[in-house]
């Protein structure tokens, strides 16, 4: 890697950037700038904080945001604000969808995107169609958030090869990619293929790192310029060593905002216990039939698998192996002498705040035990080293299929008709396996939490009654084992009429969805309700959309859009604890959305402007929060139903080209995303499915957490020479709220406290993340290439950037309150909120060589 640095440096010295390109207008040059920015946006935007816990907290997916179109505000969000997980209009991730050649890539079970298209393959996916909010589009009914359609058509590309090399200190250290477009060949074929490698042995956060390989191939055959067949293949391998969130106490103890409890030294090497590995091959097929100049029919099919596993500790009747467990920390001690002693110990022995791998090996390799009735066979017993600590993998193996036919016809009298359908199926197999026995010989398929709640059920500790007392070796399945499957079918019809001054579009949508769980093991806690298929939950949903645009002239547009839609709830918000049983929430309803937006666009040669107001009501949301309560030795499920939210605000984005040298842009969002009612909560013990409490959650008017609600960006770009750009942007983010623990907003939590007391306020008040300001720098310039023998290289670009230039380490990218609450002491510090700190200054430098 360091050689490459040197070469780059030499190139820079030898070939000063004094190249002139005569045949481009000023506008094209500035367009060029946008493309460069876009190309590097993936690097800026990639966030490695994809923790399972946070996924449950409904954090938003960024894939859809990573790819700014031509919207100024969207650019600002993608390049700058994602540092705080900014989400457009504060929506949750299931309202943002990515499409590939018109076929949706939704994760039907969790919401968000199933497949990560990017991973360094920026070059092949740069052709994107972005639909913001309720705007009309021609490939789908659309979403409340954004719909992003990636278009890959090899026959629209000239023959070209691109090598891209980049360095950074953030999510990767080094990235190389190669892309080749064949151009249109004589026999009607066109090809594109691309590969990207990126890796970092250690990232910004200690103990984290990543390896990623992605490859893409696409072939297109055209017949008589009316029939186009495209076959594409995308493959990704991803290996991410993840960071853990930390409480303030841990940050103070470790003297670092980036304390990561997930790693420890093993034989002198840093080993991370939480590693997420994904393999996702996927095949796309597209057929485009250009029936005549006014009409076409397209159908896209995609099918693929997604094998994902994430490691973590499992243990059985031994102390918690995670160093950040609350009982290890000074705050757990009530005695000041002990508290100080532990504080001193941690500050003198920072390794005690990391995983002690050798101790885990020592316990396992000295724990000889005999297991009787192995596999349920009486008289069969096995004696060996029983692992008390293991690394387990939580697997999600998904097969998925989607098809999307669409027909469009434009009539001579300015009518346009779109008819389309989407068929989607996804089955995800959730199970656990042993990743590493850590020095032991076997693991027993017992549920260590099963024993405590039902002592008269002798089978309660068995994860699988069909094969009790099973001994598990490395790679062996254990624990929960079930399939979640979702089938969705929908169709839409859209009519667009263009008048001289007015455009009208009307669309309607009908959707059918089917959710089912299939248990593959018979759990000892729920012998009658764990094995086999659950009943099917079906939903019939509708949507209506109306748009009206007044075209004052070619530069000013006024636009109003209305939408009403219902959507099925997410699988994991319906099934209460699918790991163990098929029980569902008592009150299952479709989620209702009502939204309106008002837009003003101005588009002149020097000024691009959008001002929007939006108002959205979301009703009947449900959500299940799961946490472990070590007082009753069971996981708890807190089921919330009837959540209502209101998202409203004003968006502003403007870009003003002052001169050939100077361009200014500004963007801000002034949002207000709030809960508008009190939700019903039902608290269940996971081990027994017994309802132990019904609560009302008093969070009316609390802000919906997860995204800054107010954000501003101001950028200045300077172009001293034709092919050199520098930009500096200042950003301000505020009104970002910590994910709430609903239990703390119930009458139970504040029982007996004086309503005016500080303790009372501490319990119910939501936490606001610090407001912050940060500065990003970005520069790009073009260099002439050296002539190397016969290869003729095109001039190449070098772009470089610094984010968070002032190294503001007070920024928090995400935070949540722990779901436990200590009712006895009513002390919130016992289970304090956890934070992900946003990174300090980071750089990247990247170069593209085209030939």
């Amino acid at each position, binding site marked *: 890697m360091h050689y490459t640095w040197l070469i780059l440096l030499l190139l820079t010295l030898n070939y000063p950037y004094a190249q002139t390109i005569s045949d481009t207008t000023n506008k094209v040059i500035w367009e060029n700038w946008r493309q460069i920015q876009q190309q590097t946006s993936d690097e800026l935007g990639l966030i490695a904080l994809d923790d399972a816990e946070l996924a449950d907290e409904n954090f938003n997916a960024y894939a859809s945001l990573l790819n700014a179109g031509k919207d100024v505000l969207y650019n600002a969000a993608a390049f700058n604000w994602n540092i705080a997980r900014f989400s457009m209009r504060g929506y949750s991730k299931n309202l943002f969808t990515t499409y590939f050649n018109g076929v949706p890539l939704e994760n039907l079970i969790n919401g968000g995107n199933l497949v990560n298209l990017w991973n360094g393959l920026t070059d092949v996916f740069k052709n994107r169609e972005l639909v913001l909010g309720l705007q009309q589009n021609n490939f789908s009914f659309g979403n409340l958030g954004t719909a992003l359609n990636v278009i890959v058509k090899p026959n629209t590309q000239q023959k070209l090869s691109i090598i891209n090399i980049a360095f950074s200190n953030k999510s990767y250290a080094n990235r190389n990619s190669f892309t080749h477009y*064949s151009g249109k*060949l004589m026999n009607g*074929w066109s*090809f594109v*293929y691309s*590969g990207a490698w990126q890796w970092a042995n250690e990232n910004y956060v200690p103990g984290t790192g990543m*390896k990623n*390989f992605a*490859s893409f*191939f696409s*072939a297109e055959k055209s017949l008589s310029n009316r029939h186009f067949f495209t076959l594409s*293949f995308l*493959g990704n*391998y991803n*290996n991410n060593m993840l960071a853990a969130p930390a409480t303030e106490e841990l940050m103070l103890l470790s003297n670092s905002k980036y304390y990561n409890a997930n790693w420890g030294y*093993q*034989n002198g*090497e840093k*080993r991370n216990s939480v590693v997420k*590995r994904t*393999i996702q*091959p996927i095949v796309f097929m597209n057929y485009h039939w250009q029936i005549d100049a006014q009409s076409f029919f397209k159908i896209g099919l995609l099918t693929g698998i997604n094998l994902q596993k994430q490691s973590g500790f499992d243990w059985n*009747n*031994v*102390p918690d192996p995670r160093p950040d467990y609350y*009982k*290890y*920390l000074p705050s*757990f*001690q009530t*005695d000041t*002498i*002990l508290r100080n*002693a*532990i504080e001193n*110990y*941690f500050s003198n*022995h920072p390794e*005690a705040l990391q995983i*002690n*791998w*050798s*101790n885990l*090996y*020592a*316990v396992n*390799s*000295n*724990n000889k035990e005999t297991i009787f009735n192995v596999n349920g066979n009486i008289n069969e017993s096995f004696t060996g080293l029983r692992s*008390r600590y293991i690394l387990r993998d939580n697997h999600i193996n998904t097969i998925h299929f989607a098809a999307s036919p669409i027909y469009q016809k434009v009539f001579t009298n300015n009518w346009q008709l779109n008819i389309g359908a989407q068929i989607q199926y996804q089955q995800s197999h959730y199970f656990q396996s042993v990743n*590493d026995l850590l*020095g032991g010989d076997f693991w027993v398929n017992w549920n260590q939490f099963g024993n405590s709640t039902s002592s008269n059920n002798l089978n309660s500790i068995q994860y699988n009654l069909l094969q009790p007392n099973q001994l598990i070796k490395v790679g062996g399945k254990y624990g929960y084992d079930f399939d979640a499957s979702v089938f969705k079918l929908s169709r839409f019809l859209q009519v667009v009429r263009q008048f001289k001054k007015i455009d009208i579009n009307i669309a309607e949508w009908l959707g059918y969805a089917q959710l089912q769980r299939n248990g593959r093991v018979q759990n000892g806690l729920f012998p009658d309700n764990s094995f086999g298929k659950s009943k099917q939950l079906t939903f019939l949903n509708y949507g209506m959309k109306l748009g009206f645009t007044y075209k004052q002239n070619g530069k000013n547009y006024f636009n109003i859009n209305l939408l009403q839609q219902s959507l099925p709830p997410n699988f994991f918000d319906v099934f209460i604890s699918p790991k163990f049983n098929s029980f569902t929430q008592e009150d299952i309803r479709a989620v209702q959305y009502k939204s309106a937006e008002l837009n003003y666009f101005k588009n002149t040669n020097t000024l691009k402007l959008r001002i929007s107001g939006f108002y959205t009501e979301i009703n009947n949301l449900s959500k299940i929060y799961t946490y472990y309560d070590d007082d009753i030795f069971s996981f708890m499920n807190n089921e919330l139903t009837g959540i209502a939210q209101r998202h409203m605000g004003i968006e502003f984005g403007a870009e003003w080209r002052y001169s050939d040298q100077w361009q200014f842009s500004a963007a801000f969002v002034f949002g207000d995303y709030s809960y508008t009612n009190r939700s019903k909560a039902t608290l269940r013990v996971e081990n027994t499915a017994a309802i132990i409490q019904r609560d009302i959650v008093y969070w009316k008017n609390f802000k919906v957490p997860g995204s800054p609600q107010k954000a501003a960006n101001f950028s200045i770009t300077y172009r001293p020479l034709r092919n050199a750009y520098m930009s500096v942007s200042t950003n301000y983010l505020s009104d970002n709220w910590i994910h709430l623990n609903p239990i703390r907003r119930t009458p139970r939590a504040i029982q007996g406290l004086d309503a005016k007391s500080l303790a009372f306020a501490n319990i119910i008040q939501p936490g606001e993340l610090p407001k912050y300001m940060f500065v990003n720098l970005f520069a790009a310039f073009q260099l002439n290439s050296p002539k190397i023998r016969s290869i003729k290289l095109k001039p190449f670009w070098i772009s470089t950037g610094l984010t968070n230039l002032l190294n503001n380490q007070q920024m928090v990218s995400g935070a949540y309150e722990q779901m436990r609450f200590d009712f006895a002491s009513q002390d919130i510090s016992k289970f304090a909120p956890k934070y992900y700190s946003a990174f300090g200054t980071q750089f990247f430098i990247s170069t593209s060589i085209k030939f």
Partner: protein
Amino acid sequence: MMNKFTICNWLVFSFLLFNSCTKPFDTPPENNVALPNANTTIRNIKLLHVKNNFEKIMDDFIIQGIVIANDKSGNWYKQIIIQDESGGIVIRMDANNLYTNFQVGRKVAIKLKDLYLGDYGGVIQLGMGIDNADPNNPTLLPIPMSLFDKYIIKGSFNNVVAPKSVNINAFTTNLQDTLQSTLIQLDNVEFSISDIDKTFADALNKQALNLTIKNCSGNTIALRSSGYADFASFKVPTGNGKLIAVYSIFGNTKQLFIRDTLDVNFQNPRCGNAGITKITISELRNIYSSTPFVFNDNKLITGIVITDAANGNIASNEMVVQENNNGAGIVVRLKEIHHYKLGDSLSIFLKDGILSKENGILVLKNIDSSAIQINANTKTIEAKQMTIQQLKLNAKLLESNLIQISYPVLNGSVWNEHMIISDVTGTINCNTLLPASFYNVNLPSQPIKTITGWLSFIDTLPVLYIRNLNDVELLPPNNSNLSNAIYLNTSPLVFNFNDIGNGLPTGCFVYTNATNNSLGTVATFNVAKTSWGNTSGGFKNCASALSLSSSATSSQQDNATNRAIALRQTSTGGFDPGAAFVLHLANTLGKKNLQISFQLQSLDVNSARTTNWVIEYGLGETPNIFNQVPVTGNLFTGNSQFSSQNVLVNFNNLLNNVGSEIWIRIVAKTATSGTGSRPVSAIDDLVISWND
């Protein structure tokens, strides 16, 4: 030009790369870190401790020891015990499942600086800090989990500590006894015969148990096991043999703890008797069918003597033993006169005994005193409390059980074979035998609170026998309750209430908050003359309805000499429901056919609501059961009426000859009905009559 080969290559290459990116981590080597050398011994450290003190160790002392006990079986909790050549010590550690790191046989070194010494019941412990949550009883804090590695260095495994062979008498409760917290071995010991049917501890209720270990010479020591131990529910072995245990004390109790049941190796025959099995007395009773049964196997029962042979109210060669409070009892007849005392806990070997039915009761006879072993003295069996009716209904099941009757009346003049006791529910014979020390002694004249005895039969007739005069508990003569009760001397007893300006008559009370099972709370009675129309709630002194009309003025009412105890109910204050007029009778000894009559009055014509009254009686000092009695006459007041109605209550034989206190009440147990003002109710001219 792209061809198929290139495509294939590309795909194959892609997949190869997918799977080539992870390398396995090395297994760390076995922990063979050299332990820091010890610079002192466990004994020297223990000598620093003064009982009930806490000593912070300020020097860089290091001890080494081998783990001899941990929490693996659950018999210890949050502690391990280590031992070196000089002695052993308990280390308190704030974690569960310590055994996974501190296996028995693991050598550890402990850096003592900043740790604390303390003791628990005389057992010296190492911990960290002092818990002053209860300032009168500070305790040693355990070492927090996160500091284990700072103070405790783990070393090699499988080191052997040989238990020290000692005699059962070798232990002392001295703080510095070198055996304390060390592994010891006792040879040729066994569980005491009274314990051999027991489990190590009470696993169901998670209660620890002390069992008795004895040697063949009869010396004993306690073996204590935690209810959380995984062997708590195991039955103890009945044989004799070797015991390995950790010696501990709690105050003055010497006690042993085992690591698990492998430490108990009792496979040899017991001292003297081999192969004994214990049966319950209930099982014993079930053995009898219709003919005498002779035992010729090694069975054993245990029980506590509930008779008092010394006082002679039982044959001198007999006793009754009852297994436990809820267990069965049996008459045991020995071959000769015995000296077992009330409260002796016995093991009785059944061999050669005969079970037979004699005069209607089951007797275990032909028992030799050599077949009886005393396990303990002065144990008590709690008598079952019941009424005579309940006793008679369940008499067959209660044979040879200790029974207690409350508020009985003794019918007779002296203790003899003709005495009969009665309570409200019935009568039962209560015989005193001629040899009894209290035979012909006069019966107490004072009312009796309880009488206790064992149930026997003469053929099919149930008979209660008392053991001695302590079985008769008298009501205290200076019972403050009774000093303001009504004593029935000459019938009839008349209350005209005309003098209530000076307070209520003795034995008359007014109550609020009365409920089905409580008298409620005594309310104040306002002695000042009050007019009927007065709307403030409470019991008050009003003119009786009998001498005036509803339209009488306030001054006419005040001038009236005929007074009544009146009540204006209000929604609060426990009046509605819950108001009551109460009569408190000391007893009805020698009286029968009790009757009460009174005037129930409605004094305010402007009160539209209706109050419903009932008459109830309850027994005892503070009765919690009340029985309703049928009446002649109307029992409601209010309803915009002005009236005085006669009410007659005939108790018939319900309260005949009752020895206990009696509470009779006129009570509003249900809320007033209707709307408008609540009534002003009153009672007047109350007459109690009876036959002697």
